[in-house]
């Protein structure tokens, strides 16, 4: 695919426009921004529900003799997840320069980091808690904890699917300097999932410590 921008005449004298936009001149980018607005609203409401139940529950939180959330594992997971935003950012820069090789490499690194976070959540954190502390059925605290973290985990999973799709399209040579709105959309989504984790971490893990 040519790396020069393809221009077409609009019908007005001497007016030529590109056939592909990126960022705010591409419908897809707007679609992603609005999808993120919907998802952010969902997370905001989930966390608001958590605090609603918490403040109605009385002075002791977590209730029912459950201990405060343990931080060691989750902080390691957090470091891994947030680190993943760096290669994803670099993948975006590579796409803007049309460097498909770097794009693929950085996508792959981001994918591995995201997958590690998810593996630790589902493979280690959840079984540990469910075996020794509480389950979603124990009480409202347990229900909220598992629902919110799993909801975030599901978003990481969708991000991984998107990453795999972009990787596939990169292998097919679909992207160049002008055509890479799928990469942009994936990057936006991934950063969103990382930012949301800050709020989940602060609300569910850190705030009960005080």
């Amino acid at each position, binding site marked *: 695919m040519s790396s020069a921008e393809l221009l*077409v005449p609009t019908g007005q004298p001497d*007016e030529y*426009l590109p056939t592909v936009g990126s960022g705010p*001149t591409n419908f897809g980018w707007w679609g992603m921004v609005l999808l993120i*607005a*919907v998802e952010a609203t969902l997370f905001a409401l989930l966390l608001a*529900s958590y605090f609603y139940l918490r403040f109605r529950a009385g002075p002791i939180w977590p209730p029912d003799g459950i201990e405060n959330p343990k931080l060691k594992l989750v902080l390691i997971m957090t470091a891994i997840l947030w680190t993943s935003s760096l290669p994803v950012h670099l993948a975006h820069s590579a796409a803007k320069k049309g460097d498909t090789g770097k794009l693929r490499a950085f996508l792959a690194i981001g994918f591995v980091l995201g997958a590690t976070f998810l593996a630790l959540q589902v493979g280690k954190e959840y079984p540990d808690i469910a075996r020794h502390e509480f389950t979603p059925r*124990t009480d409202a605290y347990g229900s909220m904890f598992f629902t919110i973290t799993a909801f975030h985990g599901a978003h990481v999973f969708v991000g991984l699917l998107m990453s795999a799709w972009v990787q596939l399209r990169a292998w097919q040579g679909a992207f160049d300097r002008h055509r890479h709105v799928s990469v942009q959309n994936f990057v936006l989504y991934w950063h969103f999932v990382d930012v949301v984790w800050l709020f989940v971490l602060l609300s569910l893990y850190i705030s009960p410590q005080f």
Partner: protein
Amino acid sequence: MATTVGGTPPPPGVTTGLATPELLEEHWSETPGLGSFLTTVDHKRIGKRYLYTGLLFLVIGGVESLVMRIQLSHSNLHVLDPETYNQLFSMHGVTMMFLFATPVLSGFGNYLVPLMIGARDMAFPRLNAFGYWVFLGAGIFFYTSFLVHRLPDAGWFNYTPLSDSVYSSGPNVDFYALGLIFIGISTTAGSINFIVTILKMRAPGMSLNRMPIFVWGELAMALTVVFALPALTLANILLELERRAGFHFFSAAGGGQPLLWQHLFWIFGHPEVYLVVLPALGIASAIIPTMCRRPMIGYTYIVLAEMAIALIGFGVWVHHMFATGLPTIGLGFISLTSFLVVIPSGVQIFAWLATLWAGKPVLKTPMLFILGFIVLFVIGGLSGPMLAAIPLDQQVTDSYFVVAHFHYVLVGGAMFPIFAGIYYWVPKMTGRLLHEGWGKVSFWLMFVGFNALFFPMHILGLRGQPRRTYTYQAGLGWDFLNLLETIGAFVLALGILVTFVNWVWSTKRGRPAGPNPWEADTLEWATTSPPAEYNFENIPAIRSREPLWDQPELGPHGQPVEAGGRGLGGGHNTLVTSLLEAEPEVVAPMPHESPWPFLLTAALLGVFYGLVIRSWVFWTVAAVLGVISVAGWFWPRGETQET
């Protein structure tokens, strides 16, 4: 203006950028037949489907209410048993809100927004088709519960703990919760589509301050959906987790809070009321200037008022919960914001009245419906602030006074504009005018029937008749007014029927409409009736807020190139323009017909049926088919901006 130095030459076949009807026909026409019935992405076909399907649900929801009115026409009747009555009033609310009002207004938007802003389609044509199929699928899903006699029965707001698995163990509430999650996908997809279309596809020159008020109304609705609907979806997901998987969110036993449901529901529920009313107000603001033969007075104030209503709508949800024992300081604030709604609503009403006063109103049927709407909306607007006053609200809560109020606002405020819209725009869709005489008959039947039905409810509510009870005792003095209401209901239904018959009759025998039967000002009237698949031969350049009144060169054959029209090479393209000033940015190729939206919906319907019959095999298989459909949808065909 983006012009160009450098860049590669245009691709072969596109040399001049000029369009001809033959070229456009070749690129835009869809082959007739079953194939195109299932795969169409034409916003006009999809818009009409939303209308037809939504009106079918109006009939279903209406029949439900007639049966209830028969039951209530006299004390101590037993036409319905209490359980059936519960199911009917629950489904009446769900049907009218989610399957009639919202989709029909989306239908008008789907059909009209691209035409009004001078575009060739919506921004995401396949998503548009998907939105319709999901709406249809969700409607079928809801009414499957009718076949197994398990209609939702906990009211349209489905309060916990009544709706939890202890008090409602059958699948009734599952149909409600899953159905609403399902239809939420459609509404969200549709709204995202509206926002991008409105912000990025307006014809060059149509800066935001020249955009028709109807389009502003659809934009306000779509933005409201984006930030309000997640609350409903979330509430229902939590409810299903509690009912099915033993989680605790709402049941006091596990540390949950029943009021959490009410908060989440009404954080969505009140904006929902406005997202039905806002586009309906937009219909009024489209018809009034045309019928008054002058531009709308106070355009800017009306637009600001619409946006203010959308915004304030997020701050009033607790007024549905005045009687739940919340702390009074919070109630005071919510009471205040509820009173605030009066201001932007009043601004719009006074702007309409000023336009009527300054113009020369022509009393055609659409205008009659709009005048009727103004009267009813004002009456509903008077009982609104009464309910915003906490002491009065606590007195009449859950009585027929509340039923009277919200029917005046919703039926008066949305259904009357919808019928005005039918008389006004159906000629654009079919090419033939509806019959004026029968239109007026229909209006008067509806107007008189409506008031006979709903006005006495104010009085009965103040006298203490509770809503949602299937009968009442003799000797309370309620019989006469209830009988009057029932008669009113049938008169209203007759009026609606007259319009439907008129519509069907007009498609064959109505007077030909021509491109612009009302001599209106907005761009949809610059096309043939019905419009060509590609809408406009040349994308027009706009220099006025009332383009058809101020730009005589606009007409059914497209604006000539000399006057600023853009043919975009006659291909399957539309123009992307900038957000504020609508300056041309990109010539975007648009996707063609696709079977995937339909197939994805079928898979999703399978998932939801699987969930309701609790067969994980069933829903897993359906979910896998859904993932395959998504892959098929996005699989590159080299025709859109897909990379």
